């Protein structure tokens, strides 16, 4: 087994699995699940194996499109520690979630559809991770969007799910619009698509015109905005919670949405050359991080709370990209976040199963005795998310905040505040779901989930807790603290954490309904409504106007009027033919006169 062949196996085994499931999956549930899990596990094992191998130096690619020397688009893999870490994260979590799904989807229909979709997703995600050039990444970028579309739309009979899947794909396409343009810009200037060449020799080209580079980078960043649900394109992520919970946990928390950050990390050197682009990225990330946290504080749907926290955490990562000196900083948070956010979602899934697919936290309560194990796992995840010391999230998040405070003080302190909010809404959710008293029969008769779902929880709880510890972390990353972080920062973070936890705990421990009500947050700052209005009125209205114009202006002018004129002309000319000989003789004479005039006097 060579490090040359391994990546290809990792990449394509899920595709094979997906194809096979597509054809034979409908005949046997175990077969579908088994194939999917096997392919993921194989990838997982190989990834871990490769993780401890030295990076291969020689390029590992074959041509996909080659037109003379005008354009070369290869399909190839890069193996560096960035991609290796990501491989490990993706395949491991995927394996766990696949396993979990067996239990979660037991009673659902479209079993084979679901696992085919998951495998297809894994394939596309690994493609993004391994891509060694922009275009290959774009290809898998789109495919990830497709698999997300399929999986969100799993319950296609529900209008909500159908709309959510459509919205997710389209919003991502909007992001990809910028992404592809950015690729075009970079390629047009440098003539190459390979990350290697771009990040090394390519940058030199732009010394002449930095504006161009800035525009290009911002355009590329649009891809991240779409895929990683940054503002203003974040709306699709909460809606995507219509999909099955494991999907939310794998795609919309742990891996897919992190792809945007991963892509930025890939092209980090280019971004560094474009400081203004970095400013844009920082602002987007910081604002997203804060606003999403605000929205999270007022949601009632357990999955939506987590979705907004995901957006917020992604905001952290993007901010980290913009502010840190090395991509390892945000990647570290990506890593820990993948663990605990996935854990949280799987716990939520287990709760939801226990609650017979009831997702409103105000119908739950007092579940800690009914589902102790889930409770435990979720607490671990929650503490990690809210940055409790010694938990993984604590290390990675504080690191980013440190860098941010140094480079962008305003955004930095905003993210500090966000940390407090995070603690608040996390504990709010935990308290309402697990403490207090049952508010619903389902809550009364809830039971712990089956083992096949609990094992993944256990497997994830461990890293969520410990992944941040320095001696583990430096196996994966080489990171340093931001220089000159104000010493006051860490105490402040601790205080904020304590305040958030306490306030939430006491506010919500026994609350029957939300004691605080801020419609502005509850309604997601009205951004969704704004978009709906725009789509309905501006786009829809404009489109209908155009279509009216097509029918009554273009068609009328180009087709109807001329043809009618011709017909009418004929109709009129007929009436010269009045049948009277002398009239004819008269016309005849007139014709003679006219002809003679032409001949003689012209």
């Amino acid at each position, binding site marked *: 087994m060579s490090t040359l062949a391994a990546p290809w196996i990792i990449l394509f085994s899920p595709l094979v699995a997906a194809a096979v499931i597509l054809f034979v999956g409908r005949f046997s549930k175990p077969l579908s699940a088994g194939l999917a899990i096997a392919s993921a596990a194989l990838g997982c094992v190989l990834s871990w194996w490769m993780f401890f191998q030295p990076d291969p130096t020689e390029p590992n690619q074959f041509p996909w499109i080659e037109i003379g020397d005008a354009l070369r688009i290869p399909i190839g893999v890069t193996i560096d520690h960035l991609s290796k870490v990501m491989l490990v994260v993706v395949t491991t979590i995927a394996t766990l979630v696949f396993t979990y799904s067996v239990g979660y989807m037991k009673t659902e229909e479209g079993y084979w559809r679901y696992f085919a979709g998951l495998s297809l997703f894994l394939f596309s995600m690994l493609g993004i991770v391994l891509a060694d050039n922009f275009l290959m990444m774009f*290809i898998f970028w*789109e495919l990830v969007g497709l698999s997300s579309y399929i999986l969100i739309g799993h319950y296609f009979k529900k*209008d909500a799910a159908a*709309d959510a899947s459509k919205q997710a794909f389209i919003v991502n*396409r909007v992001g990809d*619009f910028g992404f592809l343009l950015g690729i075009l810009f970079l390629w*047009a200037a440098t003539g190459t698509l390979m990350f290697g060449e771009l990040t090394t020799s390519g940058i030199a080209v732009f010394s002449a015109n930095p*504006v161009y580079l800035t525009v290009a980078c911002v355009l590329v960043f649009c891809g991240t905005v779409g895929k990683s649900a940054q503002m203003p394109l974040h709306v699709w992520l909460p809606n995507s919670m219509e999909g099955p919970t494991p999907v939310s946990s794998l795609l919309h928390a742990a891996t897919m949405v992190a792809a945007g950050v991963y892509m930025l990390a890939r092209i980090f050197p280019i971004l560094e050359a474009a400081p203004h682009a970095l400013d844009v990225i920082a602002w987007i990330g910081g604002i997203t991080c804060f606003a999403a946290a605000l929205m999270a504080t007022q949601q009632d749907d357990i999955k939506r709370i987590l979705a907004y926290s995901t957006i917020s955490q992604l905001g952290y990562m993007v901010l980290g990209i913009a502010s840190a000196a090395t991509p390892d900083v945000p990647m570290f948070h990506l890593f820990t976040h993948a663990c605990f956010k996935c854990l949280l979602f799987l716990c939520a899934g287990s709760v939801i199963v226990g609650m017979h697919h009831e997702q409103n936290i105000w119908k739950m309560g007092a579940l800690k005795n009914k589902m102790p194990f889930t409770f435990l796992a979720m607490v671990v995840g929650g503490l990690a998310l809210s940055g409790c010391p010694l938990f993984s999230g604590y290390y990675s998040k504080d690191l980013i905040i440190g860098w941010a405070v140094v480079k962008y003080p305003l955004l930095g302190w905003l993210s500090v505040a966000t940390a407090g909010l995070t603690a608040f809404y996390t504990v709010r959710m935990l308290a309402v779901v697990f403490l207090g008293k049952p508010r619903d029969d389902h809550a009364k008769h809830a039971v712990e989930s089956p083992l096949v779902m609990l094992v993944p929880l256990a497997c994830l709880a461990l890293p969520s807790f410990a992944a941040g510890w320095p001696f583990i972390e430096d196996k994966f990353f080489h990171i340093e603290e931001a220089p000159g972080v104000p010493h006051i920062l860490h105490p402040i973070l601790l205080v904020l954490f304590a305040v958030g936890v306490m306030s939430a705990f006491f506010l919500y421990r026994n609350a029957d309904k939300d004691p605080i009500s801020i419609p502005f947050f509850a309604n997601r700052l009205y951004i969704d409504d704004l978009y709906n209005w725009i789509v309905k009125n501006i786009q829809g209205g404009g489109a209908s106007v155009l279509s009216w114009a097509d029918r009554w202006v273009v068609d009328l002018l180009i087709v109807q009027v001329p043809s009618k004129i011709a017909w009418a002309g004929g109709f009129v000319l007929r009436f010269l033919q009045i049948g009277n000989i002398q009239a004819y003789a008269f016309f005849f004479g007139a014709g003679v006169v006219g002809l003679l005039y032409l001949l003689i006097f012209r």
Partner: protein
Amino acid sequence: MSMVSPLLFLILVPLVAIAFILVGSNARMTALIASVVNLVFVLALFAVYKQGEAPYQFLWSLPVIPSMGIALTLGADGLSLIMLLLAALVTVAAVAVSRTPEKNANWFYASLLFISAGGIGAFASIDLFFFYMFHELALIPTFLLIGIWGSGDRQAAAWKATIYLALGSFVLLLGLIGLYLIQPEGMRTFDLRAIIGMAEAGFLPDGNWVYLLLLIGFGILVSLFPFHTWAPQAYASAPAPAAMLHAGVLKKFGLYGLIRIAAPILPESVAAFSNLLLVLLVGNILYVGYVTISQRKLDWMLGYSSVMHMGYIFLGFAALNTLSLTGASLMLFAHGLSIAALFALSGELRERTGTLDFAELGGFAKPMPAFGLLFGFAAFAAIGLPGFVGFAGELLVFFGSFIGGEPSMGSINGKEIFALNNFQIATICAVWGVVISAVYMLRAYRRVFFGPLNDRWAGLPEISGLTRGAIVTLIVVMLVTGFFPSLLINFLQSASQVWP
């Protein structure tokens, strides 16, 4: 040269089949056999075609009007072969999916084969005169197909399309005559190769007016904005097989002609009028794109979407470099297949429900999952999802057109300026078109296949048999060529030698 070209056989097969049908052999079987024979034959040609040798192979020529240098000259290079493959594939699919009408089935299939023969003949001709004449073979069959077996306001649609196309083709004829007349006296001919030779030798003085005539003529045939209004109406009313053949094969004729004739012979003129063309094609992409969004019927939506996609191909043509032209050629192939599959499926749907109004449909993925799956494949192929050949085509078009024209960035006397040239602006609009197409395609898919199922439609029969096979074939071809576009691109190299 002396031996009879296989291409002639390719053209004669449908015609002979028509003769058999008209004397009363089983129409459907005959048509099916003929089309399959042709398909096999085209594949054989791919195998026999020798890369790297003379671009045009399988040559055969029969002087028809020697005094004007008109001869029935058949020959195929890579591009022609690809188009022939497209024609053959779509013909098989069209015949396979067509429901035999209870009355005058023989005319129905004869008309289909006529359209197919016309397309094949056009793609196999090197002589511009016959290239033109073969295309016209399809005019009357389309008129009859829409008029007799069409649906909706079929008569108006048939009239509009036919008159419109007749007008366009005569404008085109003038263009070809002009192309003939600007050649130096005594050397005049309609043989494409000879004309290209003259163009390279610089014997062709400014052909701007010729190019304009060609552009308008071809443009009308390809439904270039604003000459597009005939297309959606005709496709909406046409029976599915007719729509497949016309939108899938015939409509490609115009762009194929531009790529074949204008690109190598009149590049200066193309460049001279590029701004005009860019405006029109952006009209195709954005304007028609948004019109498509607001369609309320599946067939109209598909008709408009096919018009919109022509915009990309025009962009590829306008940019006039190897990348973009290659992309345009790929898109000819890709769009032909995908739109054919989509029309076939919407026709099947019409057969089942009798309506294609989004308001009345919904939830069909439940009763007929395979149908939904196939439609999904076709739809995503149409909006250029990676993995389908359409994506490769669009990509190359974008890359080519983005570097088309003069680069307009850099620094002027120290002050660094950054501006986009028209090609880049058009490219940006085109890339936005990708979003638009996602919007309308997914909306249609969601309206038809997702959501709750109306009880009216409970227990609709699943797509089956020959139809399923035909559409699967189309999709598989799109997937294979999409995973390995170099399969097609290598063949295109023979054609790309004469491209600027």
